[in-house]
């Protein structure tokens, strides 16, 4: 790990000021991803700004929804009684990710800003456009089993690793940020970006900005939801494919559908066309297959991850069936019903 300066502000304004326009400065909260990246010399910050003392660790009622402070830990969020009751999709997605130790440390804001777990991004001996723009993508034509099938570019096929963010995408959360130009709110769908020709940039956060909260709207889809995560181990592994499905039903007719995928793209992959297709249709396997086909119509395999396309198709159908039946996937008993 390189040497760095360390500052510990007590207010958001102090934190933003400490970051300033210094491209080598980094905020640190849980540290579970940043310290790991520093140990691999992927990140070499000149200054760490310890934001753990900022007053951003509360979950508050707001406009019928909840405002989640950026420093609320993943564990505190997943086990909060209001989240479990009103947004169980979010609680389940969080509990599907990482380990208990990591969830106890990792923050809400940090979860949004975690970097890809692409092997080549971590390996400083190999070219990587995300780590060193312009050097090329080692994953394309390399060991690409875990990589993206949707929204890739010729410059990067990395995936966003978060489970929590897949649920936040489906729930239409809003990310509130503060920066030198003031405060603004970013719709979740616009927070993360696709790699395009600038894969070094994961998000649309402007330089100098800090996440202060993630706001949930009132609709929580508590009646019909599931988070179905498929991976190489039953626990403590990143998703090969995951599905956040949420429905509102009138009898057996779909009134509203939300559908987001993890493990398949550079950002949580929400497809509003597939959601629109489901609206007004009966909650049947046939409808769900049509939605899955639509989501995966543009899917593009790499050399060894083509299995993800069929896996995602089946996971979408199964996820929507679980949501419709009101039988969400258990995050401890991993049998898939």
């Amino acid at each position, binding site marked *: 790990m390189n040497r760095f300066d360390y500052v510990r502000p007590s207010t958001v304004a102090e934190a933003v000021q400490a970051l300033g326009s210094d491209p080598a400065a980094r905020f640190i909260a849980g540290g579970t991803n940043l310290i790991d990246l520093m140990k691999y010399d992927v990140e070499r910050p000149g200054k760490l700004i310890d934001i753990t003392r900022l007053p951003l660790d509360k979950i508050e009622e707001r406009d019928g929804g909840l405002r989640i402070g950026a420093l609320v830990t993943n564990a505190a969020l997943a086990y909060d009684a209001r989240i479990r009751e009103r947004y169980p999709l979010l609680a389940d997605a969080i509990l599907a990710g990482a380990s*208990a130790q990591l969830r106890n440390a990792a923050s809400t804001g940090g979860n949004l800003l975690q970097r890809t777990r692409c092997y080549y991004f971590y390996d400083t001996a190999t070219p990587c456009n995300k780590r060193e723009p312009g050097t090329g993508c080692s994953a394309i034509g390399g060991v690409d089993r875990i990589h993206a099938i949707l929204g890739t570019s010729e410059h990067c096929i990395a995936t966003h690793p978060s489970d929590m963010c897949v649920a936040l995408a489906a729930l239409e959360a809003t990310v509130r940020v503060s920066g030198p130009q003031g405060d603004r709110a970013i719709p979740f769908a616009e927070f993360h970006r696709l790699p395009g020709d600038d894969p070094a940039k994961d998000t649309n956060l402007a330089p100098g900005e800090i996440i202060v909260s993630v706001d949930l709207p009132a609709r929580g889809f508590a009646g019909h939801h599931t988070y179905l995560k498929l991976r190489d181990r039953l626990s*403590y592994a990143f998703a090969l494919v995951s599905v956040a499905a949420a429905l509102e039903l009138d009898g057996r007719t779909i009134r509203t559908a939300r559908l987001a995928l993890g493990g398949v793209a550079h950002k949580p992959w929400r497809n509003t066309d597939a959601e629109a297709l489901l609206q007004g249709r009966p909650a049947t396997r046939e409808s769900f297959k049509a939605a899955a086909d639509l989501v995966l119509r543009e899917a593009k395999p790499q050399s060894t991850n083509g299995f993800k396309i069929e896996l995602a198709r089946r996971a979408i159908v199964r996820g929507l069936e679980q949501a419709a039946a009101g039988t969400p996937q258990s995050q401890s008993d991993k049998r898939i019903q």
Partner: protein
Amino acid sequence: MLIDSGSPGGVGTIGITLTINGERRELQVAPWTTLLDLLRERLDLTGTKKGCDHGQCGACTVLVNGTRINSCLTLAVMKDGAEITTVEGLAGLAHREGTNSLHPIQEAFVEHDAFQCGYCTPGQLCSSVGMMNEGHAKTRDEIREAMSGNICRCGAYTNIVDAIEDVMQQGGAR
């Protein structure tokens, strides 16, 4: 600003206070020192193990203010003011006057033969206590899931779950 290590490039150690296994310690640390390295290299508390050093194995698990975390992914300076419990301090958590006993989870690991080489054991023990403090896991499936951040290369998992279940049935952590 609560703390500022000083000008860029300055060597800048920072004064912090930690209560480690009940003992208050005033320490000067370089900001890049992980909590794990502080415990092992500076304080000779080598019970906490360095396995992967990347948050993947759980051997470095300690309790910070009663909550289990990976000490390898935590900078010591960030835990200024915290209470740290390592495997060396577990018995003290459960100490009863006039006895010289282990923590119940330690007793149960011995009773159930819940280890072979023992390298993951300090992390397994601290993680078990942290899990019982959390109070969410009730069934064997839930225990296995809640302990999935602790890898045992010898494969003692079945006996580890037996040991934890035993202690939970006797009333849990102290």
